[in-house]
């Protein structure tokens, strides 16, 4: 039974677990920083700088250059169609526009932006911890894809 082939995969797995542990530890510490304080801003900027370095070091992955309609059916799901791209871009832009409408309409209790609506959650440590974990997990996903 050849076991040598498993070594790189095992090493990658250990590396991933270490990254996850580091992310959880960072989130636990960063969530201690209250919003609207310099430490919170620094914590975001440190994570942002780390992601920047990782993104700069990783070359972009090649995507399939075929049109979706030319691919065999099992592979079509791997490449988003132009229409699905447009639908997602449209929805994200609509959320942005709605946020701007709320911002310029009042940005107060009566006209809340998304961040004002999330304030009660992010004001508590557990809520902030979940926010930090989600944000860092999204960053981890971004730099590993």
């Amino acid at each position, binding site marked *: 039974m050849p076991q040598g082939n498993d070594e790189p995969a095992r090493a990658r797995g250990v590396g991933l677990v270490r990254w996850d542990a580091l992310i959880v530890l960072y989130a636990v510490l960063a969530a201690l920083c209250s919003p609207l304080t310099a430490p*919170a801003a620094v914590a*975001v900027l440190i*994570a942002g700088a780390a*992601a920047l370095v990782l993104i700069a070091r990783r070359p972009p992955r090649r995507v399939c250059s075929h049109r979706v309609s030319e691919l065999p059916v099992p592979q079509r799901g791997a490449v988003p*169609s132009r229409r699905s*791209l447009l639908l997602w871009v449209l929805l994200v832009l609509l959320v942005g526009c709605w946020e701007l409408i709320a911002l310029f*309409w009042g940005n107060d209790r*009566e006209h809340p932006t998304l*961040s004002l609506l999330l304030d009660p959650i992010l004001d508590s440590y557990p809520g902030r911890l979940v*926010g930090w974990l989600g944000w860092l997990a999204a960053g981890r996903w971004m730099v590993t894809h």
Partner: protein
Amino acid sequence: MTAYFVIVLGFVTLLAAMLAMELLGRAGREPFSPFARVLEAALASRTGRWVLWAAWLWIGFHFLAR
């Protein structure tokens, strides 16, 4: 109908639409794709990577630091 209700209803509607698109994409229904596939396509280009990094950083700054 108060302004608060209108704004919250707008956010809920948009988030529900996103959830529906995600579920339809995961179910393999055309022309929908899961959001992760769209992001992967964006990450395949250098410009897309920087745009997504900037968006991710802005989200972190906006919601966690401000």
